[in-house]
């Protein structure tokens, strides 16, 4: 991020921390599509996207005062998004133990009028086969974040990010190709 945009972001975050609703709204507008993309990558379910994205931003507003370094806002926001999605996936898993769906009801149909391409279908399937931690990693990379930024978001080392990313990409390719070829 270039210094001028970092300064503008810091200023925006500080205003939002002081309760300025216009600043909070601007932050949501700036990041809503990126967060929605991240959530969709994590869950592979279109019915979860708006609800979870809303949860992420509500948590953001509530926790914003605790952010000591506004310059780290993006890493902090995507960490929040990641944790929200992982919590959601864990709850889904627990729910399935007590209320199992029949296999034919497990998938969620896409909204009426939405026609998925084969590639998107294959990607959604491939992502759904990965662990949540690996989904988060791939989603952050697709988001355009550097290894250093991802390491900061996930609170790990750059070396660990590179190693995990390599494995995650291998796994994704395997599942993507196996679905795409069927």
């Amino acid at each position: 991020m270039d210094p001028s945009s970092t300064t503008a972001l810091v200023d925006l975050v500080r205003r939002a921390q002081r309760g300025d609703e216009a600043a909070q709204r601007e932050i949501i507008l700036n990041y809503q599509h990126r967060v929605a993309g991240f959530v969709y990558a994590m869950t592979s379910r279109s019915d979860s996207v708006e609800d979870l994205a809303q949860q992420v931003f509500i948590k953001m507003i509530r926790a914003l005062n605790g952010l000591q370094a506004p310059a780290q806002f993006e890493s902090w926001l995507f960490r929040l998004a990641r944790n929200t999605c992982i919590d959601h996936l864990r709850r889904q898993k627990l729910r399935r133990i007590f209320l199992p769906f029949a296999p034919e009801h497990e998938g969620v149909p896409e909204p009426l009028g939405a026609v998925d391409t084969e590639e998107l279908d294959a990607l959604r399937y491939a992502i759904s086969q990965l662990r949540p931690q690996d989904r988060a990693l791939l989603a952050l990379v697709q988001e355009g974040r550097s290894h250093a930024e991802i390491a900061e978001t996930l609170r790990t080392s750059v070396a660990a990010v590179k190693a995990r990313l390599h494995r995650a990409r291998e796994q994704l390719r395997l599942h993507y190709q196996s679905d795409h070829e069927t």
Partner: protein
Amino acid sequence: MKPENQAWEQLFERAASLLSPNFADRVLRAARAGIDAAPSMLSQFALGAATAAICFIAVALVQARSAHQEDNRTMADWQQIAMAADDSGLPQ
């Protein structure tokens, strides 16, 4: 461009289309109204444990009260028998 990369682009485009036009306003309204995000797993387990504890205590109290009432009835019955024995002059 690899097919996967195209698929990722489509995924992000699809996700953006899933948000309602007034998404930001809805978020701010919900945040103002204090509508909670989904409770955490820990808070849900804590709620379940607290509910189970309350149920257990309630059952134990009802059981203790019922047993006490039964004891009182039994004691009253024996007292009647003892009085009847007194009246008839039977040895105690």
